[in-house]
């Protein structure tokens, strides 16, 4: 094994060697630089491999042939090896990305680069306090110099100013550091970190006080290198102005090294200093994320994000007292995620010609780079399967276990802010107009592309590693190896195939998975399994209508289906949450594919992540420190914890079902999605939320929260959701939005049914689950097909399409009869069960809302069918054809299903009914022949169908007989106030269809919820925008900030210390 | 030599006072060259102080580097930014003045 010391000597030797070369031998110099960096990486990698595979203890490296503390020593252990590898690799890859610049600037720049990387490794390796200072100074000086690399291209003096600001601040920092070191030395008589850590606790009286003060100076100086809020204006200027390849190093490697230095310092200071680290860290995390919100410059935005992540990790280090041995796993996961993602993003930024966030739309033509971007932001947001996810999971659980709820809340809040701007950015990339000047010729930027892809590979490799570690850490199967997820990821590799191949594969996969697992589901889960898997493959039939390759669709869709498939099989909190996140992310990508879906997809992912965080918090609270728990164990929770857990989980799930107040994401997301995506996200995905609620209610049931029966609250929410959802639906002009609002209403019904907490209520909810899947998928497909043909979703612009699109019309007709609950179709069964269910329920008031919601549904449904298919055909649509075959086919299948379910609802419901007896033994239905009897009433679907059919056919025959010579008349052959109209536009009554209703009840549809949320986001945004003005750009002001920071932390921190 | 001799004490008090005086001059001087010279003087006094503090190595270094080289560096730069040396002072903080200096100054 090559001594880790040679990481340093190799870099220095090479740096000095470069001086021997002629100024013109730049290629050679560059080669030497790369070789050296590779050598350094190789040494680190060797050590990492040794430690990881054999688990040997850390190795000490002595210098000067003298033992510490009398000479400087270095140490390399697992963490050091990993960090130096990270640093050296980032250095190597950045050097690749910097090729042009380094070649232009010559050997001096390369030498500085080598020294910078070396110094960072030195910070990690050294165990001597003053040596740490030296390496820090090296880093500072090298960084200040490397900022100038961008001057080579831009030459506008900005980087120069930024470097100067950095030097100003570092002067203060090094003064504090030196004074702190010398007094710490004076107090303990040593400069060795371990020695000092051993000596410090033995100090007594005045010496201890003096040492504490000295340590404070050291600590604050090193923390200041982490760019804590608010003393970080200089860092942002550097991030903005520096060459992105340097920023990658500055963010990933410098941050990592400085954090490790803080970790070493905390070893000396002991637990008493942890709260200070946590405080600084969390404030930085939240504040930097807030300030990032209004950023428009990509590099500055990434800078804020870097600072935030560093703050988070600092806060984690500060929680070492409770994280214990998990600290390495958690902080390491967060740190590596941050480092790789940030480095990758900075390298990517090197490919973008302009600095606005929108300019990144230039990436759009490059699927691989897009995938890299997505992986990076997912990593930063802590989504599975990346290491940050595991880390966040454990962190939140441990925090919750110790009752550090405020910190937990702040972490989640900050993470949500971060996800907000990152995903907004992704939305820009996918949807904003690409600048005319696209990515600088990718071939020329080979280095940056290579570095980005390397980071991408590292990201996924780390996911694998962290998944394996999770196995060791808390006995989990590596989720990345879960079959559904692998299947979804496989589509990334298959994305070059034509649509029909991929679609067939996808359908086959869903069906195969169902075949493999169907024995595992109880009847309740079976319903969901059928909807998710069989239903999913049915919906996918519609995707055959697409041609070409449809890049990105299948990985996203299959990711969502993988999440769904894993969700119903999950038995413990971890699996459940992983599946939840996967389906959220997958569906987000799907929704984002819509033409105008950018803002809606964003609000979808934000609400979903917010909900997911609540679920995470709920799970964490519930486990009380254990890494995960069996979902069934939720039932064992007791007061006072249980209602809180219930509340968090319920709200989390209700964001997915779009309960009122949390619903504003849904209309846009579902309406703007692609034709075949809308049924997936509406018909299938919404059920995931219901499934969550079912799991929750099955286990936790009734909870009392300060005297409020939570179930009752849910009953109200369900009823209100049903009412408002329906009410909003009737005023939509956009057909798909109408359906989307209708979904909100329908989910309200289902929630209401669940919240009834009786046998029939649940049966009704499950019936809604099935019915809603069938008819909403059908309606979305039908309307989507129409919209595809007509090119508009505005209903008033359509009309009279019945003759041109008869099949779509039939599907819609059957659909609306089913939705409205008119006998004889299957919707009626739901209503019937509903009435029977509420007869036994106690809370009666919310039912009034439901009663009102029912007929209102009728209004929007009629509008849907009338304004599209009936009325006057417009001139521009006279040549419209029926929707594509593949869109119509599933609709017809749904029609068949609806008819079958209408006649024999027992087919499915019987089993569910029997199964529900386990939970609600009373009040089940009696299935006798074709009659279904409840405690209160009875119902015979077959008889109804026959009676209605016979009457209908008889009358029809009679009419045919009487009216046998009826002849079709032309479109305008109507009696119209004694005139004959000639323009369909003026004759088609469709716009503002329910005007009287708006006059009477319009006040109920005021967008108060939207107003609320937009005010919230505006407030955050404005807060961020105002607060960032505090970074005036003046280096002197930054110095003020730094000193004020030191003084404030001193007053706060030392005040509370004993 | 267990107690400090009055001579050395007196000397060191004097040194400290001049040190601080020179430092004040260095930051208050209206003319930059004066300020630089005063800063050099501070270093020089400091190096004497180091001698008193029994640190000859440091004294030599401070004298050679702190008061010697650094001061020269300052003058080197100063010679190349003539005209802008008053920038940022309240007296000549006005931007116009700076431009005029640069445009007409040579």
């Amino acid at each position, binding site marked *: 094994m090559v001594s880790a010391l040679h990481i340093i000597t190799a870099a220095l030797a090479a740096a000095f060697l470069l001086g021997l070369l002629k100024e013109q031998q730049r290629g050679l110099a560059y080669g030497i630089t790369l070789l050296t960096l590779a050598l350094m990486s190789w040494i680190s990698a060797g050590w990492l491999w040794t430690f990881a595979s054999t688990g040997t203890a850390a190795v000490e490296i002595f210098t000067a042939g003298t033992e510490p503390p009398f000479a400087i020593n270095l140490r390399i252990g697992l963490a050091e090896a990993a960090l130096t590898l990270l640093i050296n690799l980032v250095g190597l890859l950045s050097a690749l990305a910097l090729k042009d610049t380094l070649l232009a600037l010559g050997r001096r720049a390369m030498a500085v680069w080598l020294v910078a990387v070396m110094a960072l490794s030195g910070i990690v390796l050294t165990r001597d306090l003053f040596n740490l200072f030296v390496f820090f100074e090296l880093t500072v000086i090298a960084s200040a110099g490397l900022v100038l690399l961008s001057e080579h291209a831009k030459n506008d003096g900005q980087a120069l100013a930024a470097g100067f600001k950095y030097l100003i601040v570092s002067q203060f920092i090094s003064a504090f550091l030196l004074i702190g070191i010398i007094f710490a030395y004076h107090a303990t008589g040593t400069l060795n970190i371990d020695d000092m850590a051993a000596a410090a606790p033995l100090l007594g009286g005045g010496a201890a006080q003096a040492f504490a003060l000295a340590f404070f100076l050291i600590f604050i100086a090193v923390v200041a290198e982490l760019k804590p809020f608010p003393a970080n204006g200089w860092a942002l200027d550097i991030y903005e102005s520096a060459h992105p390849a340097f920023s990658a190093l500055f963010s990933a490697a410098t941050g990592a090294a400085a954090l490790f230095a803080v970790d070493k310092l905390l070893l000396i200071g002991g637990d008493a200093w942890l709260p200070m680290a946590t405080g600084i860290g969390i404030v930085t995390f939240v504040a930097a994320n807030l300030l990032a919100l209004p950023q428009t410059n990509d590099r500055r935005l990434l800078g804020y994000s870097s600072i935030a992540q560093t703050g988070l990790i600092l806060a984690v280090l500060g929680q070492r007292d409770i994280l214990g041995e998990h600290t390495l796993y958690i902080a390491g996961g967060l740190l590596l995620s941050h480092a790789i993602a940030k480095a990758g993003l900075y390298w990517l930024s090197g490919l973008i010609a302009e600095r606005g966030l929108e300019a990144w739309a230039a990436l759009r033509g490059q699927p691989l780079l897009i995938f890299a971007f997505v992986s990076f932001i997912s990593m930063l947001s802590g989504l599975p399967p990346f290491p940050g996810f595991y880390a966040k999971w454990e962190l939140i659980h441990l925090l919750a276990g110790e009752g550090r709820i405020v910190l937990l809340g702040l972490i989640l809040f900050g993470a949500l802010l971060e996800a907000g701007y990152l995903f907004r950015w992704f939305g820009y990339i996918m949807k904003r107009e690409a600048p005319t000047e696209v990515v600088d010729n990718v071939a020329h930027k080979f280095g940056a592309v290579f570095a980005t892809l390397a980071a991408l590979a590292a990201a996924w490799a780390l996911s694998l590693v962290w998944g394996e570690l999770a196995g060791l850490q808390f006995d989990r199967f590596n989720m990345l190896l879960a079959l559904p997820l692998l299947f979804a990821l496989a589509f990334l590799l298959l994305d070059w195939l034509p649509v029909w191949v991929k679609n067939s594969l996808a359908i086959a996969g869903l069906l195969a998975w169902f075949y493999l697992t169907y024995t595992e589901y109880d009847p309740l889960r079976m319903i969901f399994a059928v909807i998710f898997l069989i239903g999913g493959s049915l919906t996918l039939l519609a995707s055959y209508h697409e041609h070409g390759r449809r890049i990105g669709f299948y990985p996203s869709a299959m990711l969502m289906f993988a999440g769904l498939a894993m969700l119903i099989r999950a038995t413990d909190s971890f699996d459940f949450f992983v599946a939840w996140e996967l389906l959220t992310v997958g569906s987000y990508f799907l929704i984002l594919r819509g033409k105008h879906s950018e803002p809606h997809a964003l609000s979808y992912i934000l609400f979903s992540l917010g909900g997911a965080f609540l679920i995470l918090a709920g799970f964490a609270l519930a486990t009380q420190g254990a890494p995960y728990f069996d979902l069934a164990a939720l039932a064992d929770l007791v007061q006072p914890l249980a209602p809180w857990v219930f509340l968090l989980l319920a709200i989390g799930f209700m964001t997915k079902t779009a309960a009122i107040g949390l619903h504003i994401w849904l209309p846009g997301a579902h309406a703007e999605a692609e034709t075949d995506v809308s049924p997936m996200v509406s018909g299938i995905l919404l059920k995931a939320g219901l499934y969550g609620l079912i799991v929750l209610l099955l286990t936790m049931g009734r909870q009392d929260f300060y005297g409020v029966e939570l179930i009752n609250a849910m009953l109200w929410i369900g009823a209100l959701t049903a009412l408002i959802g329906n009410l909003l639906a009737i005023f939509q002009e956009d057909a798909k939005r109408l359906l989307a609002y209708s979904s909100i209403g329908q989910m309200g019904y289902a929630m209401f049914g669940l919240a009834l907490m009786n046998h029939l209520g649940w049966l009704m909810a499950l019936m809604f689950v099935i019915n809603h899947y069938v008819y909403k998928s059908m309606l979305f497909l039908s309307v989507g097909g129409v919209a595809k043909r007509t090119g508009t979703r505005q209903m008033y612009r359509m009309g009279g399409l019945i003759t041109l699109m008869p099949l779509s019309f039939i599907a819609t007709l059957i659909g609306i009869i089913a939705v409205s*609950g008119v006998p004889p179709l299957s919707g009626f069964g739901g*209503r019937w069960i509903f009435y029977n269910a509420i007869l036994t329920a106690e809370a009666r008031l919310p039912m009034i809302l439901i009663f009102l919601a029912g*007929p209102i549904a009728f209004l929007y449904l*009629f509008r849907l069918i009338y304004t599209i298919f009936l009325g006057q055909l417009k001139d521009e649509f006279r040549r419209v054809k029926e929707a594509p075959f593949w869109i119509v086919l599933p609709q017809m299948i749904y029609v068949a299903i609806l008819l079958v379910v209408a006649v024999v609802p027992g087919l499915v419901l019987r089993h569910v009914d029997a199964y529900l007896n386990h939970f609600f033994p009373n009040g089940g239905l009696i299935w006798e022949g074709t009659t279904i009897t409840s405690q209160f009433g009875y119902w015979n679907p077959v*008889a109804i169908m026959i009676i209605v059919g016979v009457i209908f056919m008889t009358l029809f025959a009679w009419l045919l007989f009487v009216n046998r010579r009826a002849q079709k008349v032309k*479109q305008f052959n*109507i*009696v119209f106030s004694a005139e004959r109209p000639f323009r369909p536009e003026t004759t088609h009554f469709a716009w503002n269809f329910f005007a009287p209703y708006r006059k009477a009840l319009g006040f109920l549809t005021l967008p108060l919820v939207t107003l609320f949320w937009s005010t919230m986001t505006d407030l955050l945004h404005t807060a961020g925008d105002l607060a960032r003005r505090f970074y005036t750009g003046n280096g002197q002001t930054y110095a003020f900030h730094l000193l004020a920071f030191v003084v404030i932390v001193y007053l706060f921190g030392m005040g509370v210390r004993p | 030599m267990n107690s400090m001799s009055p001579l050395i004490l007196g000397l060191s008090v004097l040194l400290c006072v001049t040190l601080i005086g020179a430092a004040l001059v260095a930051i208050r001087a209206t003319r930059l060259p004066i300020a630089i010279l005063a800063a050099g003087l501070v270093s020089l006094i400091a190096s004497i102080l180091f001698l008193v503090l029994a640190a000859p190595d440091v004294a030599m270094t401070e004298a050679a580097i702190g008061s010697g080289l650094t001061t020269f560096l300052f003058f080197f730069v100063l010679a190349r930014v003539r005209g802008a040396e008053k920038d940022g002072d309240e007296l000549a903080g006005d931007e116009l003045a700076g431009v005029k200096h640069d445009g007409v100054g040579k």
Partner: protein
Amino acid sequence: MSFDWMKIPYALLTVFIVFNYGLLLGAFIQKIGARAGRRYGIPVWQNYVDLIKNYGQRTSITHGVMFYLGPVFRLTGGIGLLLFVPTIYGSYMFSNLSFAGDLILALYFVFFGTLGMALGAGESGHPHAAIGITRGLSQVSVAELPFALAVFAVALQYQTLSVTDIVAAQQGGVLNWTLFTNPLAVAAAMLAFLGSMMRPPFDVVIAPQEIPIGPPTEYHSAYLALMQTNRAIFPVAKMVIYMNLFFGGATSWPEFAVKVFLLYLFSAFVGVCFPRFRVEQSIRWFLIWAVPLGVQAILWV
């Protein structure tokens, strides 16, 4: 409670009786209204004449399939509604086809005809038809609310959804009627009743006075005849439900005739006395006056 073949002729008999009664009743009420307005009014058999005339008309055109099917839906709705509810309490003959479902079936089947009508009229391409439909749907959606509340109150009161059982519970004297055991529910339901009868003040939906508006605008000849048939059957079917739920049902045809007549008269009476509401006015009116009654009814049960 199950099916046997004899039910079919019996059901047809019910339909026949109700059809004729409905035709006569309609004309009769119209005459009363005319007399109240100091006019002479139509002859009592006028509806028969109209019906025969319309069935006999030659010109017959169609705007399309749904236009054609609209009246069929409509009449199916009317007849189905009638048949899903027992007409005469205690009579096997006139229990109709109520074995197929309970009160809820009847409640929801009301919409079947409405939907069909709306669809048919929609295809006529006549904007006034559509306007009428929007008005009608708007108004009905709210008018139904007090009714639903009242029904729910009644179902809660008797702990059953079976119409027969509800009627059974009201036997044994006038004071056992829901009218007296749950007056709030009945009040709410009667206000809703006004709204669903398409008579003033809630008849803006079909607004016959100024311009022809509403679903039947384009219908004529046999179509119109079917709808006229329905207009005879449907209100009676609806009143049968009211009668059964609130007024003790009917144990014989005379009792049936009287109760239905009185109910019809009630709506006609109100219609004569009050001016017409615009739709938004009637929505507000129902929400302010009828719904609170229904809520009270539910809470007091």
